[in-house]
């Protein structure tokens, strides 16, 4: 059944037990992002020290895809240099915009590869990217 392809176990696990959830201090910048078609929203904070993502904290409401992908995001970027975090972001965005034609690299995206099936549903791609857009925005504000 197609549904299982989209909702991989990994996604449902992250949805039920999100990592890094909650808003924490200290932080350097915060970003609020919303998906205007469905009303999903996320508020996400980053704490960057010496070019390294020390912490990402967030809260918000949304579907399993948006919640799980933000949870995966924290796993992928916390403790990483900003460059590397952005490289992962680019890989994730590419995967999501690939309409299911792109083979994800598990070394780079870890649990993020579970979203490969979501890329086949254009209306859900925005869900998967919501937290990442907030991350990108927050980091660029923290640098400003």
């Amino acid at each position, binding site marked *: *059944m*197609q*549904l299982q392809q*989209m*909702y991989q176990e990994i996604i*449902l696990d992250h949805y039920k037990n999100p990592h890094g959830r909650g808003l924490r201090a200290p932080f350097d910048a915060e970003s609020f992002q919303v998906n205007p*078609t*469905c*009303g*999903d*929203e996320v508020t996400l904070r980053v704490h960057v020290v010496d070019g390294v993502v020390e912490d990402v904290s967030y809260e918000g*409401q*949304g*579907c*399993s*895809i948006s919640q799980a992908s933000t949870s995966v995001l924290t796993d992928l970027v916390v403790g990483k240099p900003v460059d590397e975090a952005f490289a992962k972001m680019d890989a994730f965005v590419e995967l999501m915009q690939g309409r299911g034609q792109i083979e994800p690299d598990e070394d780079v995206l870890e649990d993020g590869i579970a979203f490969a099936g979501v890329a086949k*549903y254009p209306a*859900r791609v925005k*869900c998967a990217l919501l937290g990442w857009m907030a991350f990108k925005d927050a980091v660029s504000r923290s640098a400003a």
Partner: protein
Amino acid sequence: MTTTAAPLDVAALRADFPILSRTVRDGKHLVYLDSGATSQRPAQVLDAERTFLEQHNAAVHRGAHQLAEEATDAYESARARIADFIGVSFDEVVFTKNATEGINLVAYAMGNAATFGPSASRFALGPGDEIVITEMEHHANLVPWQQLAQRTGATLRWFGVTPEGRLDLSDVDTLINSKTKVVAFTHQSNVLGTINPVASLVSAAQRVGALTVLDACQSVPHFPVDFHALGVDFAVFSGHKMLGPSGIGVLYGRRELLETLPPFLTGGSMIELVKMEGSTFAPPPQRFEAGVPMTSQAIGLGAAVDYLRVVGMERIAAHEHALTAAALSGLAGISGVRIIGPADLVDRGGAVSFVIDGVHPHDAGQVLDSLGIAVRVGHHCAWPLHRALGVPASVRASFYLYNTLDEVDALVAGVREAQKFFGVA
């Protein structure tokens, strides 16, 4: 609304709608429960447009050759039939691209009144004046008024919504007062299905001399509507929600009002005299139809109205009533499902929105989609309403003449499936 008319032969009707026999998601039969967003089109409408384009197409109101005559006749005949369908005179029907444009037309024209001379003064508004809407409006009947308020300095006020999804009219006499210039509200909520008490809002507005604007997007397609009988000043609806083409909508305006309302879009065909130094404008409805219009789309909408008339609006309403009853009771039987909007059938049309504990609407929609069931998820362009009711989003099933009780059963079963999939049942 009577429910005694002979029931629809839905199987026969469905044969007119080619898309309803397609399959989706690996061979699932399409169960289209998203007519509140846009309806499907019968072959009769597609054929009318095609015949026009293959035989009579020309620029209307502009040419003197035979095709131009035929095209103008077809276009104006469609206007007359549509006017008749909603109980108004043909020169009270203005074609717009959608209902959204219709509301913007009224809002901008009122904004233009300030610089349009004394004939338009009754439409002008400024600081101290008030615009009244409701919290259950579609963004199309909300944002244009916010913007008009921002441009003119007028104040926007609104009716709240009760937890049951009805308008809270308890403060009607303070909300609609001598400062009120316009009262804009929806006939039937696209989320809740609630049918609002037009008569009492119109009389409250008339007592203070305010104009009324009715958003009839979800009423005209679904039950008999007569704007003269309702007594509203302006009303709008869209063709694509009533078996007609996309790209066409209607603004109804009372004749005396259209006659003095300043123009909105300007350009060809809406003028009387043009000089470089200034222009004067044609009488309505032409004054409000600038440029080459939605020609074949008007013809298509005319055919849609013919189709609806033959089927019978009373019968359509009765049919949707039965579907809504089945959906409400089916969903009420599932624990963890909560209806957003009236749980009973009083003054209620066929949009059924709900939330499922533990399953986000987007995820529920995905499960339904995987079963071939097309519903809408999100805030349905009524974000403030969702906020007022304390839900970020909802799932909406909306019905039309071509839907069946089996499809309602499929919806109910699909909701249980979603609960199972997400482990909440």
